[in-house]
């Protein structure tokens, strides 16, 4: 663990000089076809590039270590239908832990298998022969086609999803004002109690 942390720290210091240390870590994972995609960043909008992310099974085994790209994205193709925890230690007390539950991972695995089977069927010469010409699409073909469309859609939707994630992290004025209100109220209460005590004392 030590060398990992150390190398993580060094990577942080080398690749992202002084990352926004005082900020909240944002990490999210979502299914993307036959793989799991995720992103890693800070609440001020900087993404963490070149960061090692450990993929951990429920029993504590480290299944794989993936690295984030320049935009802080990483992807991992699951091999077992178990809940997966993605853990990244960015040093300086910034740790991210996101978990994808078992059902979601199993769904991704199932999809990957049917797709692989369909692609294998299409790749055989017999299937290729029937696929040529205006014959109606086979089930396998339709599946591959649908997967391609889904891929395109995901690419289109990705910026939208990231924007929504960023928006969720935005501190809106109402919340800030609410917080100040709480503080003033609390200290006002303290003031009232202290004043009552000093009045009672004479």
């Amino acid at each position, binding site marked *: *663990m*030590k060398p990992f*942390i*150390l190398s993580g*720290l*060094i990577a*942080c*210091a080398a690749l*992202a*000089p*002084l*990352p*926004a*240390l*005082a*900020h*909240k*870590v944002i990490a999210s994972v979502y299914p993307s076809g036959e793989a799991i995609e995720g992103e890693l960043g800070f609440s*001020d909008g*900087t993404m963490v590039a070149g960061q090692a992310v450990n993929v951990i099974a429920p029993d504590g085994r480290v299944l794989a270590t993936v690295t984030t790209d320049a935009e802080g994205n990483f992807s991992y193709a699951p091999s077992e239908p178990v809940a997966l925890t993605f853990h990244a*230690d960015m*040093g*300086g*007390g*910034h*740790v991210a*832990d996101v978990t994808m539950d078992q059902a979601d991972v199993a769904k991704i695995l199932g999809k990957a298998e049917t797709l692989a089977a369909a692609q294998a069927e299409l790749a055989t010469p017999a299937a290729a022969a029937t696929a040529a010409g205006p014959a109606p699409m086979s089930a396998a073909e339709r599946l591959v086609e649908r997967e391609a469309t889904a891929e395109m859609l995901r690419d289109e939707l990705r910026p939208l999803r990231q924007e929504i994630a960023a928006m969720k992290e935005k*501190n809106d004025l109402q*919340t*800030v004002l*609410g*917080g*100040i209100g*709480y*503080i*003033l109220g*609390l*200290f*006002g209460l*303290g*003031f009232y109690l*202290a*004043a009552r005590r*000093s009045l009672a004392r004479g």
Partner: protein
Amino acid sequence: MHIVDGALSAPVLVSGAVLTAGGITLGLRQMTLERIPAAGVLSASFFVASLIHVAVGPSSVHLILNGLCGLILGWTAFPALFVALVLQAVFFGFGGITVLGVNTLNIALPAVLMGLALRPLIARAGPRLAALWGAIGGAGAIALTTVFVAGALVFSGEAFVPAAKLVFFAHIPVMAIEAVISAAAVVLIKRVKPDLFAAPSAALPA
């Protein structure tokens, strides 16, 4: 500055919580009637300061203002900063509930130390010297906080030197800005309400 949930080991969390509880008790005991409004205002400033990010070079920083808090409040900084940290954790997810004790200790204890060391000096000093002490208090509290943060990480298994370096160097711009702000605030307070820096016993009504 705000360590998140899951980064620290259990002994560090527990000892942080215990020490913070002690600090808050001490602070509440010293909370005199006329110091409550000041504590409220500083608590609110700390709460808001962490939300405003100023871009500095490739990164962005936010003010912490714990030095100023300690200079004005002394031990009362503990409850004041604790309240703000609770609200930050609840509303914005800064830090976390389990690390609240450690975070409060890391931010409030340097403030208190600066306050204990520099308050008497500021009370006696002229405006120019007071500004210097204020600047030292502002920057020193941040520097100490970074050391404390690194310390908390070390006791949880990280290597000290890289951890400390990373946190310390990231906060050098903050130290510079806080030094200026604390100095300005101290000078202003010296001019308009010098008794704020007087010893707590002297400030008490008879």
